[in-house]
């Protein structure tokens, strides 16, 4: 028997824009279209000419920036959407987790939702019944299992959903970013479960933005760019190729110079960029590196004393902190200014951090502008990082400051 589990040949998916009524092109797609085709053509190839194969027990990671076609590719392989050209063959039962908790019904209890979700994901009812206790155990919501899911916290919902998904036993598993959910403790549980799945000889296709998850889980990695395979090979090499690619479409820099002055006339923020200590624009940094966030802004009207306020969030949307120049440390005259915010080395943990801005006057307090998720940076973990645990276990927490420890014999 052949060990070939998945064969993909010349797969492509074309979206037509401005097509028949009812077509609902997502905003990002039309943006892509305009960028790629200059707004003229009506066709947009989300994926084109993709070929690869997977053998039994292989775990393949798929990476690429937003809009590169990762999700469209997975959607085709999980048969949610039909390819426009090419073909693929999968030997064996497939389960796809494009989002955990699909089909959960808020009025039904946890118990009923386990059956509902399990069968939607392709399990037989008897199979769900057999694994029921295990699923409940894994989810950690035993106490609420007969409560309608609408009374669950979002964390509990995700736990329950992943618990169901983790007990599927497909030969080929297609996963899109499930690691982005839940608290750190639960994420580690999930990652462990996925490693078990990979080691048990099942074949995995895994899309993620989490490079360390790709590196630790996958045996091979595919880099997609503009719908095509740009590189394929050993995960370490491919992920660093992806991260090092000098690509101005990553959010290392954001030009807002065409944005209007705030409606109250106070001013505006015109430019944001991350720079390393040499002044070079960057979109990622190591945990052990210091880097700066430069904010160019304009004060337009005398009378207001606006200053930028940075609110920093981790990738789960939890706020890490808020920082601002403070009173008496900023210009008040109209003009253009550049604020540099210096982040020390060994402050951030391994994660993607998002920065939102307020442009505001403190006294009297007035917020002139709000920029949600204005810019982001990916902070990577150096294997030799001094704050890393010696066993290479995940260091948990929203931040990872390096503190001084003194230990003396008593």
């Amino acid at each position, binding site marked *: 028997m052949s060990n070939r589990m998945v064969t993909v040949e010349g797969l*492509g998916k074309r*979206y037509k824009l401005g097509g*028949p*009524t*009812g*077509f*609902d092109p997502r905003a990002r797609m039309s943006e892509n279209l305009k960028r790629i085709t200059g707004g003229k053509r009506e066709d947009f190839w989300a994926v084109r000419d993709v070929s690869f194969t997977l053998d039994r027990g292989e775990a393949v990671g798929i990476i690429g920036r937003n809009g590169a076609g990762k999700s469209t590719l997975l*959607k*085709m392989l*999980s*048969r*949610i*959407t*039909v*390819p*426009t*050209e*090419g*073909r*693929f*063959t*999968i*030997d*064996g*039962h*497939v389960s*796809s987790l*494009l*989002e955990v908790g*699909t*089909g959960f*019904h808020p*009025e*039904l209890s946890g118990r*009923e939702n386990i*059956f*509902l979700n399990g*069968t*939607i*994901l*392709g*399990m*037989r*009812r008897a199979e769900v019944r057999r694994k029921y206790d295990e699923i409940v155990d894994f989810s950690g919501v035993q106490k609420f299992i007969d409560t*309608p899911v609408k009374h669950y916290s979002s964390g509990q919902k995700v736990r329950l959903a992943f618990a169901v998904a983790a007990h599927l036993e497909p030969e080929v598993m297609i996963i899109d970013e499930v690691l982005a959910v839940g608290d750190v403790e639960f994420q580690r549980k999930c990652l462990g479960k996925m490693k078990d799945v990979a080691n048990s000889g099942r074949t995995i296709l895994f899309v993620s933005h989490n490079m360390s998850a790709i590196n630790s889980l996958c045996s091979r990695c595919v880099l997609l760019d503009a719908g095509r395979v740009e590189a394929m090979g050993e995960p370490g090499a491919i992920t660093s190729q992806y991260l090092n690619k000098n690509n101005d479409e990553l959010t290392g820099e954001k030009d807002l110079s065409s944005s209007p002055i705030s409606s109250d006339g106070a001013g505006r923020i015109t430019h944001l960029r991350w720079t390393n200590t040499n002044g070079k624009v960057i979109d990622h940094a190591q945990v052990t590196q210091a880097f700066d966030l430069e904010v160019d802004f304009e004060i337009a009207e005398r009378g207001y004393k606006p200053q930028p306020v940075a609110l920093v969030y981790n990738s789960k949307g939890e706020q890490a902190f808020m920082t601002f120049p403070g009173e008496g440390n900023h210009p008040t005259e109209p003009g253009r200014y550049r604020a540099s915010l210096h982040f020390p080395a060994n402050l951030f943990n391994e994660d993607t951090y998002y920065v939102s801005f307020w442009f505001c006057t403190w006294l009297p307090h007035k917020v002139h502008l709000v920029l949600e998720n204005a810019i982001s940076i990916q902070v990577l973990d150096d294997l030799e990082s001094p704050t890393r645990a010696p066993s290479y276990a995940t260091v948990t927490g929203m931040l990872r400051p390096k503190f001084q420890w003194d230990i003396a014999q008593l």
Partner: protein
Amino acid sequence: MRITVDAKHWKVLPDLRELFAHRDLFLTLAIRDLKVRYAQTVLGLAWAVVQPLATLIIMSLIFGRAVQVETGNVPYPLFAIVGISAWSYFAFVLKESGGSIIGAQEIVRKIYFPRLIIPLSKAAVGLMDLLVALLMMIALFVWYGVSPSAHLIFAPLYLVLIIVVALGTGIWISALSIRFRDLQHVVPFMIQFGLFITPIAYPASKITASVPHWVQVMYFLNPMAGVVEGWRWSILGLGDPGGLCILSLVSGAFLFVTSFIYFRSMERVVADLV
């Protein structure tokens, strides 16, 4: 199990084997809908009785008492409940199956399974209401001390036909509304309008006796017209299931077969459209 997807090859008819393989999902979805339907309502399951009962009372007052529709020696409420049982199931499937794909778009966008499971499971939920209406019918038979007609052995056949016509229409609407959301607004109107142009509150002979032949043909192109007439004939022995009623059976069968073909063609693009 081997799955091959090729952009160049697409089956025109649904894959029945695949459909059967997903019977557990069908069952779970139907159970879910039954459970959710009366969750957090004060009357709960009683609603399944209250709705047809209210329709029956209103109809008996208006058409039985006030208008005095001629129903031979069959008491009017008994005459009406036979029509109501068929029509309320048809209306339920039209509404629930018709809007089911749009309603399930969250799932459709994320998980693959034969989409036909969705409208089919909705139609299965309606069988519960049909059962309640049939029980009410039996109760009325007992109440009035009337015995059913000798054609009763044909009743199961017409029951199947009611389901077939309802499914055909419901599946058509569910597939059409993927592209034309307007249908969501048309369905309530269709149900209201259909109640008048189907022999529910009155016998079809009222129509055949009073309008020219071409209007009769139009009337019986409505598949429910002939099926309801036949259903009533099999239970009460009233009316004539032959003649133009055959036209309804033909249009119903046509609707049923084409609904699967059209649904299949929409299945191809549904995830891109919803």
